């Protein structure tokens, strides 16, 4: 009660809550859910891009992609660490992922079919992610906010690299340009859906806004993303697969077509073989690695015992 008042006051003043501070249980749970979901997205997100590392067309592009995927692993690490400050272990979080209880961003259930997908993921998917994440740099939970500052910096670097990859392909052969357009056709709507349901249908948003976790609404972020991206698409020379997409001078924004929410919920709820394959790949990696993790623990135990003996 008095803690609660102090907590509310801190939030209202735009201050940060730290790990050692009192916080409402629901706030803690919401943050764990959100941060771990974000962490899982980073590591599942290594798979669709990893699918093209061995086939990258030049050594430079291979190096850029490797570095990017490594960064994503790093983001996963910061985020798991941020979640751990809330009293949950990384192993528990991974167990929830592997058992299918925890979610990750369903965008990573879509397959990467051509090299252009790597560029489009950087441009659109990372672009949408940044839009979502920038407000989180000021989120009320300190460890999360600080992780997000680092992540956002790297993500915008990735976005530029993705866009650069596409620019190079658009300057290339007719086949390359077709590949880019095809990738844009496949990824545009899923990117738009990354902002989640419309504000009126969003379950968690109200309370999250109150807590200073969510500072801008889904629809506002989505609009911002569309407005920014349409200009970049012009420079690139690609067309978005939405005949209703056009500038609305009155609103000062782009209008766009209706989102296919059935598709969205099907993918979110794991009605897709993409989800099955991604989870299977993660579970296999985890199970195949069990003997390695056990060996490391056992070796550490032996070493400590020997030191103890020697002492």
């Amino acid at each position, binding site marked *: 009660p008095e803690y609660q008042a102090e907590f509310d006051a801190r939030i209202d003043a735009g201050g940060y809550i730290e790990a050692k501070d009192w916080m409402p249980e629901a706030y803690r749970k919401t943050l764990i859910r959100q941060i771990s979901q974000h962490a899982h997205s980073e590591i599942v997100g290594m798979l669709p891009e990893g699918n093209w590392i061995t086939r990258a067309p030049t*050594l430079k592009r291979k190096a850029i992609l490797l570095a990017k995927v*490594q960064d994503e692993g790093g983001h*996963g690490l910061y985020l798991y660490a941020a979640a751990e400050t809330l009293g949950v272990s990384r192993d528990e979080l991974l167990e929830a992922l592997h058992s299918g209880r925890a979610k990750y961003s369903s965008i990573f259930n879509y397959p990467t079919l051509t090299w252009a997908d790597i560029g489009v993921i950087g441009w659109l998917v990372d672009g949408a992610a940044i839009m979502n994440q920038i407000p989180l740099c000021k989120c009320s939970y300190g460890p999360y906010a600080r992780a997000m500052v680092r992540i956002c910096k790297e993500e915008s670097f990735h976005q530029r690299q993705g866009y650069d990859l596409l620019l190079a*392909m658009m300057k290339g*052969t007719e086949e390359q340009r077709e590949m880019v357009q095809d990738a844009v056709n496949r990824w545009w709507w899923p990117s738009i859906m990354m902002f989640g349901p419309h504000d009126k249908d969003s379950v968690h948003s109200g309370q999250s806004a109150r807590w200073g976790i969510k500072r801008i609404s889904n629809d506002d972020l989505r609009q911002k993303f569309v407005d920014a991206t349409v200009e970049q698409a012009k420079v690139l020379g690609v067309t978005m697969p939405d005949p209703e997409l056009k500038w609305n001078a009155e609103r000062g924004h782009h209008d766009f077509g209706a989102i296919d929410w059935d598709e969205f919920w099907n993918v979110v709820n794991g009605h897709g073989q993409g989800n099955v394959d991604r989870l299977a790949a993660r579970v296999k990696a985890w199970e195949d690695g069990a003997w390695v993790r056990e060996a490391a623990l056992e070796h550490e135990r032996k070493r400590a015992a020997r030191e103890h003996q020697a002492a």
Partner: protein
Amino acid sequence: MTQQTPNPAHIEYVTRIGDNALILGQRMSEWCGHAPVLEEDMALANMSLDLIGQARMLLTHAGKLEGKGRDEDQLAFLRIEMHYRNLTLCELPNADFGRTMVRNFLFASFQVLLWERLLASSDTELAAIAAKSLKEARYHAQHAGDWVVRLGDGTAESHERTQAALDYLWPYTAEFFAANPTDEAIAAAAIGPAWSELEAAWEAAVVPVLNEATLTVPARTPFKSYGKFGRHSEHLGHLLSEMQYLQRTYPGAQW
């Protein structure tokens, strides 16, 4: 450039070092997203990146020595199998994490010795690459050596797997030191060591760690592999069919 007319031994020597980095870097990148813990996903991606970086410098340099205008990508992606000069060890499948770490340890320990010697290469470009790469190789050898010890002296299962990995890979290390005419010419020109000279130092570096890992060092067998002479195992062709895919499918395209 230290010479005007292309010296085939020099080109081959640099290409060989570059191909080792290229092919092992490619193999290691297959781990991406599949490692036993997230830290190792990152470490493997990072070391793969180091190796691809080395390959880029070395193949660029080899292309300049050759003087036919081939760049790093033409050399990396547009040669046929028997023109790759990497050690067979580098092209073998990753298998489990144990075999991957044993391979990295055996290879990086060799690379450390080679880079150390190449610091003094009469080929100043190669010496500069060595200066940059030595630090990386030392980290790779340390990282993999730590794992070899952990896994060898871990559980019964990990010991067995790691010994099996060592038994499998060890015969391929004879190729590191196999004598060949190229190396004699290279040593004579003070470009770099004949690799056969590195054998004793390599064993001195490698055996103590294997002992600490409670592993049995296998006896040498008469088996010979010939990857660095351009005669590879069945594995390289499969690796290349994947690696070269886009360059072969869209000839001449810029990426």
